[in-house]
C-alpha cells in the first residue's frame, strides 16, 4: 500500500490504514516528542494527542511537501501547545542577562551518544529546551520562534544562548 492509498484509507476512517500510518511514523514522531517533553510518559501523551489531531485534520493535507513533514509540524505544534498550557515559557529572561562562554566541543561528538544526549536535553529547563529544539534541531529562526511561542525575538535568542550555556556546562562535566 503506497502513501496515497494509505491516505485515502485514513480519510475513509479505515482503522487498518490508520494503524499502518501510525506504525510508519510513530517512532520518528516519538523521537520528536521526547525532545520536547520532560519525560517518557509525557512524550507519549504528546504523541497520542498529536496522532488524534493528525487523523482529525488529515483532510487538510494537500500533498504540498512530504506527509512526514506535515505530521512533524502537527507533532511540534501539539507539543508546543501542551507546553504553553503549563506556562513553561513564562520565566524567560532577556538577552543582556546572559553571559557568553566559549567551550571546546570537539570531543562531545565522540563521547556522547544519542540516548545520553536525549537524556540531557530532557533534563533542561523547559523554556531552554523548547527554544533549543526549535532553533538548533527544527531549524526555525528566532523570529519564527518568537511568533510560535508568543515571545519576542530577543527573548528567543537569550533563551537559546542560556540553553546552550547550560548544555555545555553539563557536557563538560560529563
Amino acid at each position, binding site marked *: 500500500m503506497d502513501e496515497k492509498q494509505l491516505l485515502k484509507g485514513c480519510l475513509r476512517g479505515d*482503522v487498518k490504514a490508520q*494503524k499502518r500510518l*501510525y506504525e510508519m511514523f*510513530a*517512532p*520518528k514522531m*516519538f*523521537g520528536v516528542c*521526547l*525532545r520536547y517533553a520532560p519525560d517518557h*510518559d*509525557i512524550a*507519549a*501523551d504528546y*504523541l*497520542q494527542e498529536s*496522532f*488524534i489531531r493528525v*487523523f*482529525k485534520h488529515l483532510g487538510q493535507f494537500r500533498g504540498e511537501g512530504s506527509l512526514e513533514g506535515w505530521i512533524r509540524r502537527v507533532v511540534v505544534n501539539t507539543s508546543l501547545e501542551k507546553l504553553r498550557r503549563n506556562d513553561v515559557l513564562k520565566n524567560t529572561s532577556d538577552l543582556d542577562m546572559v553571559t557568553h562562554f*566559549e*567551550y*571546546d*566541543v*570537539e570531543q*562531545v*561528538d565522540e563521547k*556522547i*551518544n*544519542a540516548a545520553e*544526549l*536525549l537524556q540531557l*536535553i530532557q533534563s533542561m529547563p523547559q523554556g531552554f529546551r523548547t527554544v533549543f529544539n526549535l532553533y*538548533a*534541531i527544527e531549524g526555525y529562526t528566532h523570529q519564527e520562534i518568537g511568533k510560535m511561542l508568543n515571545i519576542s525575538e530577543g527573548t528567543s535568542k537569550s533563551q537559546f544562548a542560556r540553553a*546552550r550555556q547550560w*548544555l*555545555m556546562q553539563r557536557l563538560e562535566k560529563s
Partner: protein
Amino acid sequence: MAKDRLEKIISDKLSGLQVNPPAYVWEGIMVARKRKIRLLYFRVSAAAAVLLVLVSLPFMLTRHDSLPEKNTLTNTEIVGQPDSHAKSLPQDAELSYNASINTSDSEPLTHKTQLAVQSNRLLVRSDFAVSTEKTEVESTLELTEIQHEVIIAESADTDPATQLQQKKYQEIDALKGLEIESAGGNSKKFQLTLAYQGTPSGSMSGEDFNLLTNASKFGPDPFQSSMAYRTSFYKEIESTDVRPPMSFGFKLSYYTTDRLSIESGLLFTELSTISKTLEMNSAYHEFEQSLYYIGLPVGLRYDIFKRKTFTVYVAQSVVFEKGVRAINKVYNYEKSFLKSSEKSVAPINGFQLSTLSAVGLDIPMFAGFSFFGEGGFQVFYLNHTQPFNIRSAKPLWPVMHAGVRFKK
C-alpha cells in the same frame, strides 16, 4: 565556530532519532476516536431533529395561501343528471381525497386532474355526473375511489382557444356540484412513525450519583460489583458524565376513531456514562458503561387540535424494555495518560418499565408524509434487576422526540 559545531552534533544525533512508542498510545488514540464518533453521531442526530422542525415551518405558514380562492369547495345543487358511470357507485359512498386541487390560474387544466391525497377527509354524498349550462357542454365526472382521481370528460367544444377556459369552468362547477363536507380530520387509518429521541446529558458529582450498591437500588452484576468494589474501598467517584441517551425506532399507529389512535413499535436505546475516580498518586480510573436496550412501546394518542396545516396531540404510552447487553470498560490513567484498559460484556437481566407522557405537533409536508416533534416526560420505574444507569440515578427525565410519519 564552536556554536555551529555544537548545534550540528546535537542535530545530527537527535533529528533522525526513532524510538518505538509504548503500545498503549495507539490504544488511547482508538478510545478517543470512538468517543469522537459517538459525539459526532449525537450532534448530527440533534441537528437533523432541529432541521426537521425548521424545514416544516415554511410549509405550515404558506400552505393556506397556496390554494386559489375559487377552488374552495362549497355545497351547491347538482346540475344535470347522473350518468351511467356514476350509477355504478352506491349512493352516499364515502370517498377520501384531498381538498386541494392541482389547478391555478397560472397552470392550464388538463383533461385529467389529479387530486393529491393529503390530510383532509372529504365526504361525498351525491351523484357524480354534472353538466354545466354555462358552457353548454356535457361533462362527466368520474370518481375512482381507488385512484383518488377526478376525470373530466372531453369537451364537445372543439375550439382549442376556448376549450381550456371551458374546462376550468367545468371542473370548478363540477366540484361545486358535489355535496362535499370536510370532516377536517385525518382520513388515514394507519400511520408509520420513524422517530429519534433525545434527552439531556450532564455531569453529576459523587453525591448525586452514588455508586454504592445499597444506595443505587440495583442488583449486582459483574461490572457493577467490580466497580463498587474498587470505588467503595479504594477510590471515590469524583464525577460522572452522563452522555445523552440515544433512542431511535419506529411505531405503527391505528386510528380507532377520528382522533384517537393506538400505537406500538420497537425502540433501540443506548445509555452511556463515564465515571471518574479521584486522582491518587497521579493515577485515576474511568469506568465507562454502555447499556443497550430493545423496547416495546404501547400507547394511545389523541388529536386535540386539528387543522389542515398542523395537528396538536397528546400521547401516553408504557414502554417495556429488555436489556440486550452491557459493555463495560475500565480505563486506567497515570499522570493523565491512559496506561491500560479492560473491556467486558455482560448480559442484562430483567425488564425496565417506564411511562412516557408527551405533547406533540404534527405538520403535514407532502403526500402522506408529515414531520412531528414531541416534548414530555418519561418516568423510569426502578427495579433491582437492572444495572446501575442514569435512569436509576434520576427516574424522571424530560424527553424530546422528532421524526417523520407516513400515513396510509
